[in-house]
């Protein structure tokens, strides 16, 4: 399904600190036992949020003041590990609409883009500043501006970067590429024939 244009995302932010946060942490493998993605929201960061008896560990995502946050902030190499789309699906179904980090693992980034979750990168000092602003006032409005490549947080404006092709795709509402891929049917057939695959 080709979605709507995504130019700006606004909402509250929450900072989940840590480098190399892997997809097993974002969603532990036991939650991958499913045949649809519908129920994955509550499983987000489950073992970080709950102990083995399902008691809350009072993780930042479960603090009342961060409830309803739509912008997830983290650190370097976010989403490393497996290709499980369950990870961005859980992030989206939990309520997040954009992710800001120092950097992203590649497959995770691609999965997010296809689902319409912009992943933007921001330097450490700026992320630290935003983390501080959010800590002081969790209700601070944030705007992730895809077109302008900026993040506005309270009275501050920060520069962000993102992959050109992803930015183009969000602005043109073509981040889910399936319809586009189906257009070139005859060119695909030719390629298959030329390579002896058909």
């Amino acid at each position, binding site marked *: 399904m080709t979605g709507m244009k995504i130019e700006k995302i606004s909402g509250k932010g929450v900072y989940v600190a840590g480098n190399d946060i892997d997809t097993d942490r974002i969603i532990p493998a036991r939650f*991958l036992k*499913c*045949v649809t993605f519908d129920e994955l929201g509550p499983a987000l960061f489950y073992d970080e949020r709950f102990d083995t008896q399902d008691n809350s560990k009072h993780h930042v995502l479960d603090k009342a003041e961060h409830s309803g946050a739509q912008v997830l902030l983290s650190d370097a190499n976010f989403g490393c590990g497996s290709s499980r789309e369950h990870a961005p699906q859980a992030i989206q179904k939990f309520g997040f609409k954009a992710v800001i980090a120092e950097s992203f693992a590649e497959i995770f980034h691609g999965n997010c883009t296809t689902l319409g979750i912009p992943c933007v990168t921001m330097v450490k000092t700026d992320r630290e500043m935003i983390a501080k602003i959010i800590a002081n006032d969790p209700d601070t409005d944030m705007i992730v501006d895809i077109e302008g490549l900026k993040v506005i947080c309270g009275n501050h404006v920060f520069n962000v970067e993102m992959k*050109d092709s992803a930015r183009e795709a969000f602005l043109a509402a073509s981040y889910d590429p399936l319809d586009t*891929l189906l257009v070139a049917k005859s060119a695909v057939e030719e390629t298959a024939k030329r390579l002896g695959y058909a």
Partner: protein
Amino acid sequence: MGKNLYQKVWDDHVVGQLESGQYQLFIALHLIHEVTSPQAFGMLKDKGLGVAYPQRTFATVDHIIPTTDQSRPLSDDMAEKMIQVLSDATEEAGIEFFAPKSGSQGIVHVVGPELGLTQPGMTICCGDSHTSTHGAFGCIALGIGTSQVRDVLASQTLAIDPLKVRRISVEGKLSAGVTAKDVTLHIIRMLGVNGGVGFAYEYAGSAIESMTMEERMTVCNMSIEGGARCGYINPDQTTFDFLQGKERSPQGAEFDSAVERWKSYASDADASYDDEIVIQAAEIKPTVTWGITPAQSISIEELTPDPEAVEGLDKDLINDALSYMKLAANAPIKGTKIDVAFIGSCTNGRLSDFEAVAKLIEGRHVASNVKAIAVPGSEKVDVAARALGLHEIFEAAGFEWRLPGCSMCLAMNPDKLVGDEICASSSNRNFVGRQGSPTGRTLLMSPMMVAAAAIEGHVADAREVFGLE
């Protein structure tokens, strides 16, 4: 200026450029399994689409399959349902399904190569990050998400940005007791878990060229742990010899002409690279992870890091990892007591892995404090190992010889660590909770080092335990 393999395979398979700037890439071989693919069939249904090239997709089950009793229905209802959904969807679409007990079931990255489905010059996709394994044959082999599985099913193509290529040359001869696993752990330690982001890795150099195909698969398998989307090795005579006579390889005269084509994909001598690194094989030692990322590793001779010796974030990372692992700082990894030993996975669950270990453990026994399991990567590996009597050697040494599957690599089946058990593991990830217990601990190492740890009851130097020189 010549081209490298990545550029050649890419150029051959590009259908065109998309408006976003990405390219549409034709996928020669698509592999699917029960965890990340059944949902894609549902997405296709929602859009009223069918499977465009069903003969280019192959399915198997590996992640959730039990390794003790695979009789159906499985005792886990959801696991049973996942297999059933995949089985029904593939049947409806006309996709070949390597079901349990078909003789061809196994870990998807073991099955493709052993059947000869994986061939040089192909673009290969699977909803699994360790698809990089297939790069050992000279392929662009990419892990993808479920929506992309849907895209490949519907169009046999992917929307994708090209990667840069880094050549990693490992020169010289590996020392005794040093394996392909140590090579890949060493590279990840050197370049970091995100050192490869944006890159395809070309593994080259005399140490790589002298590796068997199974060793090459181990190296390419863990490209993803180094952040690289894929890794590959140029096809050569070793590759062609491996493929000759395989069930799905071209046969007879067709094989000969295929070899000519396959050769043409190898990187040209004057090819250019975006980055180049040279590693001396002699510097690589048996390597063990101490932390919670695959780059947090040391040689068996070294001490765990000292957080006091570094500043800032690095200090926190080391402290967090050591505290999760319940390991002391600045202390030998050797001697760390283990509870579980696991040999298997798409990294090290092939016949040669079990052959190498069997030779070492014959006549010895696993320590009384250790639960040791050996899980063949596929039904074919199991059959071949049994024909050689390897299962008996493993069992006599105190290992459980299990049925094929991913097993304790990610513990989606009943094979899980309990509590904070610590596992010497031949798998590929030591993430927090990876082996099925939220507090479980993983030490990644080669199968040989797992065997040494199993026998001694603690992390040990395989070279000393087995007198390897």
